[in-house]
């Protein structure tokens, strides 16, 4: 080995602590950090295609217009919170219940646990199309199932009143398995003596759950909650494929509205400002949750 090369190897060897993360940091700088800053810069500009240069500075005008005069923006905020309020709590409760079902030994446990996880790796475009076909009011199986249990047929994603709950159902279907997996891992780390001790002390199963089990798995529930919230607030694929924001604008969430402003109307500056707001919203909610349970991250 030549002298300079040997020196270089020795140098790396002594400093792997910060040399090893370098490739990742470089990739993240070029793909995330600089584009993120550029997005912030663009949010103070207006983009006029065909002009040279195509941008000119408008200050906080984009933001002013968004907050003061854009009802479409406020509606999209309302819709994403409505969607989240339906999709996240239900996924958490369902995930918790299913995790409890799985928290015992039985034959074929592993294969069932794998099978129930499949919704989360199904290609979103494909599953959105399948749900769209199932929701079809004329020939979909969803209305057929309603008919079997003697309920009136629904228009599902076809009517303004039911489109958000119908989309939330797809999101619950996709999201519950991950919640279940995280909570199951937590439940399995609880020693079984806890339940026995509680029983010996005369506690009912319900009391055990409320005073012992739930407090102990709280950090994991918060982790699951954080991931579901992130995915809900930035939901895109299923809505874009199933309704593209329709009928009318009844399912146009903030992420979708931003996308349309950027790539359908080419209001790049305005869309950048919307993206900054969405980013701020997701970040704030996460910071609050992380504060609630800092240690929850590093388990």
């Amino acid at each position, binding site marked *: 080995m030549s002298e300079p090369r040997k020196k270089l190897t020795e140098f790396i060897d002594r400093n792997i602590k910060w040399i090893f993360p370098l490739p*990742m940091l470089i*990739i993240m700088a070029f793909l995330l950090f600089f584009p*993120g800053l550029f997005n912030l810069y663009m949010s103070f500009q207006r983009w006029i295609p065909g002009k040279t240069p195509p941008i000119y500075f408008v200050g906080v005008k984009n933001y002013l217009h968004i907050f003061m005069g854009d009802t479409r923006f406020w509606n999209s905020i309302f819709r994403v919170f409505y969607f989240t309020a339906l999709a996240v709590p239900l996924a958490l409760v369902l995930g918790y219940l299913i995790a409890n079902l799985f928290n015992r030994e039985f034959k074929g446990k592993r294969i069932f*646990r794998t099978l129930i996880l499949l919704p989360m790796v199904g*290609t979103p475009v*494909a599953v959105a199309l399948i749900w769209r076909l199932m929701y079809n009011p004329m020939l979909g199986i969803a209305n*057929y199932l309603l008919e079997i249990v003697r309920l009136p047929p629904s228009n599902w994603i076809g009517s303004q009143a039911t489109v958000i709950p119908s989309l939330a159902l797809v999101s619950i279907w996709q999201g519950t398995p991950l919640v279940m*997996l995280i909570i199951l891992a937590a439940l399995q780390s609880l020693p079984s003596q806890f339940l026995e001790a509680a029983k010996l002390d005369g506690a009912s199963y319900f009391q055990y759950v409320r005073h012992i089990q739930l407090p102990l798995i709280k950090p994991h529930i918060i982790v699951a909650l954080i991931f579901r919230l992130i995915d809900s607030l930035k939901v895109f694929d299923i809505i874009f494929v199933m309704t593209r924001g329709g009928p009318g604008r009844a399912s146009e969430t903030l992420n979708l509205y931003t996308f349309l402003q950027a790539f359908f109307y080419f209001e790049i500056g305005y869309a950048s400002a919307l993206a*900054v707001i969405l980013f701020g919203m997701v970040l704030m909610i996460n910071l609050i949750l992380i504060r609630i349970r800092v240690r929850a991250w590093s388990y």
Partner: protein
Amino acid sequence: MVLLSKGIWKKASNLLCVVSVVFVTALFLFPFFWMFLNSFKRNVDITTYPPVWIFHPTLENFKTLFMEQDFVRFCLNSLLVALGATFLALASGTLAAYSIARFRQQRLSLLALSARIIPYISFLIPWFIFFSMLHLVDTHISLILTHTVITLPLSTWIMIGFFEDVPRELEDAGRIDGCSNITVFLRITLPLVTPGLVAASIFGFIFSWNNFMFALVLAGPNTKTVPLAVFHFISYGSLDWAGLNAAATAITLPALIFMLFIQKYLVKGLTMTGLKG
């Protein structure tokens, strides 16, 4: 007598739980089952109401999909992009994860996670502008680079978990024998985390393969990926529901089969990252 009835009660409640597990699993799998079933139907069988369960199965839909359309080319595009993004993420993510796990660099791990938290739309607009200026829209390079944003936090977080499980004593033993830090990493630690590398590759591959939003903006006729192709399938007004189901089945199947293969490392990989998105 009391004991006996208690035993029976316990058995019954266990049985009830297993039955519920089967029922719930079936419920969650139903959309896939329905898609699979529909992909073997003719269009007349799909568009009848009430839905038919028994029909004459046909392979015609898959034949049309793979013979008459460019579906194979779209698959190759997706394959190339997913492999590229997975490789980039694995190479850089594994090194970073080692440093994070060994030197307890919590901040770096949160930084890696930030790529999972921030809405992609905030990067997509700048990317579109940059890649347009560099004439890289509709090239595999731009897709591979952007998909790395999905695969990188995944592989980093999965590998952190696996590196933390390697006992430090093993590495110290190597050092006492005179190995350098790099040799210890390459010869002792890395071979021990091979399952992690496999799990990280497969998850990376699946989530890059599934991504739709980036290709929607950055792909074009030359680089159309399968999710985009399937999406265009409907937007051009065709109502070939059977063909659509066949296409959906064809693109979902690889991910589902991969999942069954890595069952063993599944829980670790998934709970570490909470991934998807």
